[in-house]
């Protein structure tokens, strides 16, 4: 293809820097998208904008939300009661999904999974980790959550209940980790830097203040 003799119009390509597809599945996907654009369902520019916005999302967005909740108990109450409305206050949006925040406490640990596929608040937190999509994690975290969490380094005593949230439909979840001790006088910016991607999924419990 070095002489570039194929006949598609580059005005219809979505990510101009992408290589030409080589697998049948990728070709099929590209053909479907071209047909949708040709039929007027959306434009290539609109698709590019969605891709760019998703690429701009990262766990730091979640960390900002967590830090605000730690710093402001009234905000935390609003966040737990109605996640979608509370993150809108900070300029985030996850429509049409219902954004739902689950709070870790001294006697409760929350962990998120999608057993049916790999649902994840991607427009907010960016791409999910590879293991989150693996069939092993998806099958085992519901069946033996304590064993899987221990493999992630989270060892829970019998005094801590595990809540496994299976993201099977139109809700998207984030865990609100516990605020570490000794951070009472920290700024929101300092608190944001403590929060990791895995702590937002629930495969990490303690945050490292060192």
């Amino acid at each position, binding site marked *: 293809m070095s002489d570039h003799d194929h006949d598609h119009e580059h005005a219809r390509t979505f990510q101009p820097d992408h290589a030409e597809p080589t697998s049948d599945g990728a070709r099929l996907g590209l053909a479907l998208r071209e047909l949708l654009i040709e039929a007027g369902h959306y434009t290539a520019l609109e698709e590019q904008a969605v891709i760019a916005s998703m690429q701009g999302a990262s766990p730091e967005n979640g960390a900002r939300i967590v830090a605000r909740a730690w710093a402001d108990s009234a905000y935390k109450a609003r966040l737990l009661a109605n996640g979608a409305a509370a993150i809108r206050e900070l300029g985030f949006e996850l429509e*049409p999904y*219902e954004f739902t925040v689950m709070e870790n406490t001294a006697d409760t640990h929350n962990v998120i999974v999608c*057993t*049916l596929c790999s649902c994840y608040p991607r427009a907010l937190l960016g791409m999910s980790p590879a293991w989150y999509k693996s069939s092993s994690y998806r099958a085992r975290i*519901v*069946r*033996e*959550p*304590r*064993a899987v969490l221990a493999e992630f380094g989270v060892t829970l005593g*019998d005094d801590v*209940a*595990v*809540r*496994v*949230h*299976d*993201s*099977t*439909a*139109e*809700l998207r979840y984030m865990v609100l980790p516990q605020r570490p001790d000794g951070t009472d006088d920290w700024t929101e910016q300092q608190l944001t830097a403590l929060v990791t991607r895995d702590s937002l999924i629930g495969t990490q419990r303690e945050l490292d203040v060192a």
Partner: protein
Amino acid sequence: MSDPVFQVGQRVRIADRTPPVHHRVPAYAKGHVGVIERVCGLHGQPEKFIRGNGKPAQRIYRVVIPQDELWMNYAGTAADRLEIEIFEHWLESAE
């Protein structure tokens, strides 16, 4: 907007059926009894998207099932729980 059929705290059974279309109920939860944890919004029916737009929209509920009722020989405590989103047309009262 239809009113919710089920209320928070109500015991419900998740239907044990496998329609030959895409649906959003994992096999491990089918037939199990849980308690409504919260009443969510109305969303398109997964089973109907394949033939159109998912309408009429259905209510989603979060259902809590104790882990030791879900799995044989569960390795954990009686307080461990699985929480899952189920559409209204997959639920029946188990009061």
